[in-house]
């Protein structure tokens, strides 16, 4: 099956077809929308899967949409990192979508269900399109699709706090999008190109008087994408939006959408500007060291804020702020080890955080409780979901043999290699705080007796607990068999650094 290898554009076109017809399916039969969306994600997942071999064989797969060669048309460019992102996106989306089946009928007005799945497919295809494109403006277009859909998904229940959070998210998101568009125009004014490798080449041969414009463009890109990624001082929108959204949506937003901001930074740093961009070397170094210190502070600040939360979903959301710090710190190390750690944490956090939010959703589904202190003794009544929570917590904290441990191991190794002992302290402190906030919940779940009688509380339906369990087992699997992916990620890092 080499259809997707010859035509990688199908990764976007197939879910787009399913999204375009989802409301029509909903008009015919509301209940069919779920299966329609599931089919869309499954087919795309299959196409992504068949792509892996091809990408690893040729390092980067390129496809000229419309047959126009790169600077003239839009080129789809799938490298190691792109296919890694696409696989993470399809895998997590698939499991979250299965979970949505019961959750959506429980939480949403019936007439909104078709549009919920339409938005789900749209956000899914936009994230895939974002990670595989090789054109900077095309990236902006896909970014806008997943931004607009995520504003709506946060507020889809129509609850008071959710609408408010969505508006705050929208203001921050739209402003950061504009910052990125502004950066694109600055970059275009001095390079005259929109294709990423072509911009990189043009920057290398640019007149030196234009260097400041490129530097300002870089700064605006970084600011814009760090807002999208919710890096610590600019994270203001995240806790509200991620905790007030319906839980499956929180899972998608926290596991995947904020990673898109990180991915954008990666693309800008390595594919667009590249290390060979010698003219900026001074400001480049400053920017990286500033960014890595900000990331290090984010690790501790996010984790510390999470410790003080009384609300379960707020706690999980603040934990995301901390983990974005880990990923960015790894990227800013600019060494294969550190970057591998960052990329691996991207996967580990996507699986673990999706699991935590889905479990939080399961508690809300059964009991309607959100406060951590209300979870007493639930471990005995909902053993699978609570067990999944404990297992995913291991990965979030970074205890062997989970995937989170592997990621942090590489991060620590990378910083030791660079002689940055301060970062080791930050990473370990972050893990310590993570242990505090995660195991507090685990303690309530398993080691306290419930004080109030909660009759009739039992395990959630299988379509809800199975995704949680699979995600949790995924963190374990990728911890035990890290050798499956680590070599490819190291190659990815080396290719980016070249």
């Amino acid at each position, binding site marked *: 099956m080499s259809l997707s290898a010859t*035509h990688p*554009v199908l990764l976007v*076109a197939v879910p*787009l*077809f399913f*999204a*375009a*017809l989802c*409301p*029509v399916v909903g*008009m015919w039969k509301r209940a069919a929308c779920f299966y329609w969306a599931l089919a869309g994600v499954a087919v795309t997942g299959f196409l992504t899967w068949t792509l892996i071999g091809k990408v690893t064989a040729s390092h980067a797969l390129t*496809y*000229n*949409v*419309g*047959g*126009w060669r790169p*600077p*003239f*048309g*839009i080129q789809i460019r799938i490298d190691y990192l792109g296919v890694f992102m696409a696989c993470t996106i399809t895998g997590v989306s698939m499991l979250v979508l299965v979970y949505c089946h019961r959750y959506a009928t429980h939480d949403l*007005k019936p*007439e*909104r269900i078709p*549009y*919920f799945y*339409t*938005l789900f497919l*749209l956000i899914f*295809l*936009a994230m895939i*399109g974002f990670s595989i494109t090789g*054109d900077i403006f*095309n990236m902006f*277009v*896909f970014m806008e*699709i997943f931004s*607009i*859909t995520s*504003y*709506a*998904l946060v*507020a*889809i229940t129509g609850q008071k706090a959710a609408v408010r959070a969505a508006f705050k998210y929208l203001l921050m998101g739209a402003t950061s999008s504009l910052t990125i568009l502004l950066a694109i125009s*600055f970059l*275009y*004014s*001095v*390079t*005259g*190109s929109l294709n990423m490798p072509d911009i990189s080449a*043009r920057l290398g041969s*640019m007149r030196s*008087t*234009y260097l*400041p*414009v490129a530097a*300002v*463009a870089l*700064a605006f890109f970084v600011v814009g994408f760090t807002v999208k990624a919710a890096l610590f001082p600019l994270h203001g929108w995240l806790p509200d939006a991620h905790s007030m959204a319906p839980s499956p949506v929180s899972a998608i937003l926290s596991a995947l959408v904020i990673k898109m901001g990180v991915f954008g930074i990666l693309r800008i740093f390595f594919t667009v500007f590249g290390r060979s961009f010698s003219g900026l070397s001074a400001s480049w170094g400053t920017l990286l060291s500033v960014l890595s210190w900000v990331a290090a502070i984010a690790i501790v600040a996010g984790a510390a804020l999470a410790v003080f939360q009384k609300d379960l979903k707020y706690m999980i959301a603040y934990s995301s702020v901390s983990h974005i710090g880990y990923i960015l710190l790894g990227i800013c190390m600019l060494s294969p080890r550190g970057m591998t750690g960052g990329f691996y944490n991207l996967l580990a956090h996507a699986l673990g955080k999706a699991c935590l939010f889905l479990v939080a959703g399961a508690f809300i589904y059964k009991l309607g409780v959100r406060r951590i202190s209300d979870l007493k003794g639930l471990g005995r009544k909902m053993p699978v979901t609570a067990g999944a929570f404990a297992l995913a917590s291991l990965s979030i904290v970074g205890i062997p043999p989970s995937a989170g441990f592997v990621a942090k191991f590489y991060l620590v190794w990378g910083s030791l290699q660079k002689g940055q002992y301060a970062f080791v302290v930050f990473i370990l402190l972050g893990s310590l705080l993570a242990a505090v906030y995660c195991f507090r919940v685990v303690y309530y779940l398993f080691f306290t007796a419930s004080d109030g009688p909660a009759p009739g509380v039992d395990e959630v339906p299988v379509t809800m607990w199975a995704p949680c369990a699979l995600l949790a087992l995924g963190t374990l699997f990728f911890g035990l068999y890290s050798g499956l992916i680590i070599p490819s990620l190291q190659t990815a890092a080396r290719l980016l650094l070249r």
Partner: protein
Amino acid sequence: MKKALVLMALALIAVVFIYAIGKMPPMNGKDTPDKTHVVPRYLEKGEEEAGARNIITGIILNYRGYDTMGETTVIFSALAAVIALLDREKRRRSRSSVDASKVETSTVVRTVARFVLPVVVLFAVYTILHGEPSAGGGFQGGAIIGASIIIFALVWGLPEATDRMPLGARLPLESSAMLAFLAMGVIGLAYGVHFLTFILPGLSAGVAETVRSLMLTVIEAGIGVGGGIIFVSIVFAMMREDRYELQQDRK
């Protein structure tokens, strides 16, 4: 306090911004980097390669058609978002606050609208189909069609408008822009060339160009109809108010 902080941030951004525009290539220059790299080919070969005298149309439909597919997806996402937040109107029953007020629309407005609207729609169709040789195109025309239907809803009321443009007819048309792009793209795949390639292999030059202009027209029409209907649906969803909803159909 907050204001002072914001002003400081603004001052910082202003300094950076002014610094950048001071170093940017000058306006009106002919040999700036942006005009010497990709553009010459578009200008010299655009008409022949992309099949449109209006280079912009050539770029948005052909050279960068994938972006425009994304653009139609953006506006479809906006529609899905608005409907997910505000819900659809109910045919003949949903009303806006204007419909609920006792004041009748004045005869002048009705008469003017009756004469102007057909002309507006005609102009919109012209804009859609005439995007190749002159300014205009699917999206602009679609916006004008949408605006004319919105004017209809404002003058004759939401129940009348939802009766004339029922949901069952609008809903499938909303995705027509994306479907037009996908269908035309898949034709390319079937002929063994890349997605959204409009010059199909195996056809003689004249036929291939005719096929291309046909395919581009289908996309323009799709964007026009899809964009227009999406605007109408968004405005209908925003106009309706629950508290003014009628209990029975207004016949």
